[in-house]
């Protein structure tokens, strides 16, 4: 305790007002006003402990520092007399590895993580018993995909950018990772992570059988970055050393897993990108991706599951010809609800057709300026403006939920189109034509589902085109009118009604002849 000094922060220099600092001389003490650390003691809950008391004697000339080592006694009857547990009052100093305890320390602390509770949690996945077949029949979101020996590995950077092979792929978690691996061209056929076999040799456990990982396609990337797709009859290509290059080294793997709607994996395929490593390269960057698709559906990026997530695009589609025949499905490939995107030139007619997708929950407004000259004809201008506002393929239906499937027709909401004409002059009989000047899309949505986890559901979409009459301009003059388009999201959810169960009532009915023989 006499050697501890909390205020001694500067090395080989005297700290101001620090009475316990060994670097201070008597002259420094004479300049102090008080002692910033008057007492240094151990744990005050002990019954008796040593305390170092520092004080300044200001009466003396010059002021002196007085140091006393006393025994501090805790008078409470519940003071700690003794302990048999070392970590109770101090931090345990770590064990120094010696040849005897090295193996035991390596087991305990050798992994990437270790728990504070000793021997109570084994992180080593190889030591786990392989699960029973009927336990792996159904996967849930986020559960690691199990294979024969361990888990389906998706190498990813952990802490630093180096690849770690211990990252399991979670079911239904679409991931894309990039990481760096150290390589050497001489030993490239012995590095496991560069060979295709490493990624497809284990088969995935699913329901009662195992699913093998098939090779879907192989793309070969040359040293200058050009990629060629090989025909599928090539089979496995293993890395080998050729002319100071290592060819057929795995640069990227793309897993595609197909599953049923009950969570059973039925197919797995891997697409490889193989490349060549030159002699000077010490590291290569590998990229890995995994995506999950439900069987018999097209892989469509969901905007929420099931309710829309704020910030994800609103999904839209068309009804094909021949609806309402039950065989016709809505097609929603490549179609989104989009609005005009403002450009820097702000000229409507020179707009390159840049459109921005409508993101759920984000009200947007955009526009451009239209310069009208006398020479412009009205009808083509109106048609052009309509194209500018609505885009090339304005959809007819909007998905009600973020995960609406194209075949569930009832999950799609038709877009109602309205026309409002802004009459500046209260009626003209002339065949004055109307040009659209603004498009307003109003999306009404409601909260749907349970109180604690409400899902956003689109109920109504209205697209309103406002037109105005185009006055004929005298020749030589020109006018500039602003064209706007906007998207507004309105929450029309009715207030939630929590429903409670009725209080149970006590139903007691006396038997008919209870009061016999008095009645």
């Amino acid at each position, binding site marked *: 305790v006499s050697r501890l000094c909390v205020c001694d922060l500067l090395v080989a220099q005297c700290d101001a007002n620090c009475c316990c600092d060994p670097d201070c001389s008597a002259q420094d003490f004479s300049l102090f006003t008080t002692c910033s650390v008057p007492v240094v003691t151990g744990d005050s809950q002990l019954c008796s402990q040593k305390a170092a008391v520092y004080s300044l004697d200001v009466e003396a000339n010059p002021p002196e520092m007085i140091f006393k080592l006393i025994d501090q006694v805790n008078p*409470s*009857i*519940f003071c*700690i*007399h003794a302990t*048999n*547990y070392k*970590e*109770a009052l101090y931090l345990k100093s770590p064990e120094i590895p010696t040849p005897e305890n090295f193996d035991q320390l390596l087991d305990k602390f050798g992994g990437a993580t270790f728990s504070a509770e000793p021997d109570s949690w084994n992180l080593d996945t190889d030591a786990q018993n392989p699960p029973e077949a009927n336990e792996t029949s159904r996967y849930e979101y986020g559960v690691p995909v199990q294979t024969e020996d361990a888990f389906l590995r998706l190498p990813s950077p952990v802490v630093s950018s180096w690849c770690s092979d211990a990252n399991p792929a979670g079911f239904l978690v679409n991931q894309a990772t990039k990481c760096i691996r150290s390589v050497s061209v001489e030993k490239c056929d012995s590095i496991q992570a560069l060979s295709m076999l490493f990624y497809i040799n284990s088969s995935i456990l699913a329901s009662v059988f195992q699913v093998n990982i098939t090779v879907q396609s192989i793309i070969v990337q040359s040293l200058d970055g050009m990629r060629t797709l090989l025909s599928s009859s090539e089979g496995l290509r293993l890395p080998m050393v050729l002319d100071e290059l290592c060819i057929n080294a795995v640069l990227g793997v793309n897993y595609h897993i197909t599953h049923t709607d009950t969570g059973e994996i039925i197919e797995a395929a891997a697409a490889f990108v193989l490349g060549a490593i030159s002699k000077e390269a010490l590291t290569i960057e590998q990229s890995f991706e995994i995506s999950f698709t439900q069987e018999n559906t097209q892989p469509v990026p969901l905007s929420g599951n099931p309710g829309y997530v704020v910030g994800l695009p609103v999904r839209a589609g068309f009804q094909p010809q021949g609806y309402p025949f039950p065989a016709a499905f809505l097609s929603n490939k490549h179609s989104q609800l989009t609005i005009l995107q403002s450009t820097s030139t702000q000229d409507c007619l020179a707009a390159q057709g840049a459109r921005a997708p409508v993101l759920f929950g984000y009200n947007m407004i955009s526009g451009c300026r239209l310069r009208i000259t006398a020479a412009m004809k009205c009808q083509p201008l109106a048609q052009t403006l309509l194209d500018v506002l609505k885009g090339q393929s304005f959809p007819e239906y909007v998905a009600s939920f973020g995960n609406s499937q194209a075949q569930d027709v009832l999950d799609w909401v038709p877009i109602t189109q309205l026309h409002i004409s802004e009459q500046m002059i209260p009626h003209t009989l002339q065949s004055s034509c109307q040009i659209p000047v603004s498009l307003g899309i109003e999306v009404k949505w409601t909260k749907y589902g349970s109180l604690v986890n409400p899902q956003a559901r689109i109920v109504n979409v209205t697209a309103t085109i406002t037109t105005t009459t185009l006055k004929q301009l005298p020749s030589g003059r020109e006018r500039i009118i602003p064209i706007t388009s906007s998207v507004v999201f309105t929450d029309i959810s009715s207030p939630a009604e929590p429903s409670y169960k009725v209080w149970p009532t006590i139903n007691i009915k006396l038997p008919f002849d209870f009061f016999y023989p008095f009645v």
Partner: protein
Amino acid sequence: NNSSQLSSLPLQILLYVNVIYYIFYFLATLAMIIYKSQVFSYPDDFLAPDLAVLFVMAVLEVPRSYLGFKGNLTEAEAVLGLSLGLTVGSVVLCVYLLLWQTYVLWADVLLNAVLLSAYGLESGLKVTAIAAFVS
């Protein structure tokens, strides 16, 4: 002492006092262990042995006291000897709680010291009584 009666009166009084004191001791030690587990860091690996020793001692106390009473009143030296043997066991457990508990508070030291001295005095009186019964 009447010449016809060999039962020891001091031993009987001490046995009564011991029973009452032990009840107080058990409740106080249990309360202090609960207090320690809340205030200090008391992992389960260390809490379990301490609690086990306390409960074993409580379980041992019942036959020990009963046999002591019975042995003294019926002047049977075998029964009293058995009680003496159980007392030795209780003494060992008491010493554990005094010295090798995870946290020994000052109150622990006091309670255990009093209990140890009571056991010691009791053992002495029992030995004397056995000697009186045998001869």
